[in-house]
């Protein structure tokens, strides 16, 4: 009668393992890993993080380096990086609000400004308030990302009073419409 024999069992197990594996196999696998490793930074995850826009102080525009986030009646307020005209905040309106008697234009152009508080870029719509004489207070002209007049959708000299009852320009608002 056969008794329990751990020695024979161990031997059998080891022999089966040795028969099914190759000692040189580990070399080929190690070699494969060494060759494959440099290919991983090409995968999309790594590329996506590398493509993030550079918002270090050196990469910022002069406007963004000097921008503040406390006083929206000054040209240096961060959302005004591409505004051209009177600030509605100085004319009886606000950042998002037209002064009484003036009408919001439904169309505008959209600029990209960096908020100094979190260093992130936001999309700002410069909606004009129309239908009243020019306010002519707090005249500002930020030009970040602005282009020539032949690309009108990125030009801040255009008076954006379209779709309003009057095309007379009064002042400009700076409405936050999204993150860049």
């Amino acid at each position, binding site marked *: 009668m056969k008794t329990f024999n751990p020695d024979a069992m161990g031997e059998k197990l080891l022999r089966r393992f040795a028969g099914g594996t190759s000692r040189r196999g580990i070399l080929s696998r190690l070699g494969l890993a060494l060759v494959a490793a440099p290919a991983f930074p090409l995968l999309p995850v790594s590329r996506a993080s590398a493509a993030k826009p550079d918002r270090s102080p050196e990469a910022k525009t002069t406007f963004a380096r000097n921008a503040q986030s406390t006083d929206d009646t000054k040209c240096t307020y961060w959302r005004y990086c591409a505004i051209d005209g009177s600030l509605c905040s100085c004319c009886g309106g606000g950042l*998002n609000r037209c002064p009484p008697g003036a009408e*919001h*234009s439904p*169309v505008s152009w*959209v600029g*990209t400004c960096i908020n100094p508080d979190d260093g992130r870029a936001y999309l700002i*719509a410069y909606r004009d308030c129309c239908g009243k004489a020019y306010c002519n207070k707090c005249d500002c002209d930020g030009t970040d990302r602005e282009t020539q007049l032949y690309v009108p*959708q990125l030009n801040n000299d255009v008076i954006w009073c*379209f*779709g309003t009852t009057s095309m007379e320009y009064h002042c400009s608002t700076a409405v936050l419409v999204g993150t860049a």
Partner: protein
Amino acid sequence: MNSRARLAAAAALLGLLSFGTLRAGEPDNHSPEIPAAVRGMMADPELAQSDFVEQCAGCHGVRGSTVPAHLPEIKDRVGWFMCTPESRAYLLRLPNVAHSRLTDNAQLADLMNYVVFVLGGKSAPAGTKPFTAEEVAHERQFALTSGSLQAERLRLANEAIRKCRAPASLRLQYLGSPQ
């Protein structure tokens, strides 16, 4: 919940409420929610949305409508132009699409799928396939440069009305528009 957290919650609620009343009478400044059913049509729905706001929303509005400005309204209507291969190509051949500052065709395809399937609501005919990068790359070579865009739009709108039962108002820039 401690008293500070409760105070913060109350302040947030108050802010939200007063924000709502302040916004009355102003244009809608908020992008629409992207429905879960159409997220799969874009590789990066959030990027498509911010690209739209940056490149297109100034004139077309963050929700695709700036009525009464004299512009073709996108909201709940643009999808009808997916009716025929020709009108589908027209959307990609429009000058500001074909000559877009977005040079990456896959990124532009995402933007246009956002326009058609998110802003266009349910206007795209059932079973419409989303735009692909290859399709965008091909069609943007044939940007509409000469001829009347309004006449071309009208011709394709009439076709969508005939073939896909689009509403007759598709001929107009927007409902109630003088032209």
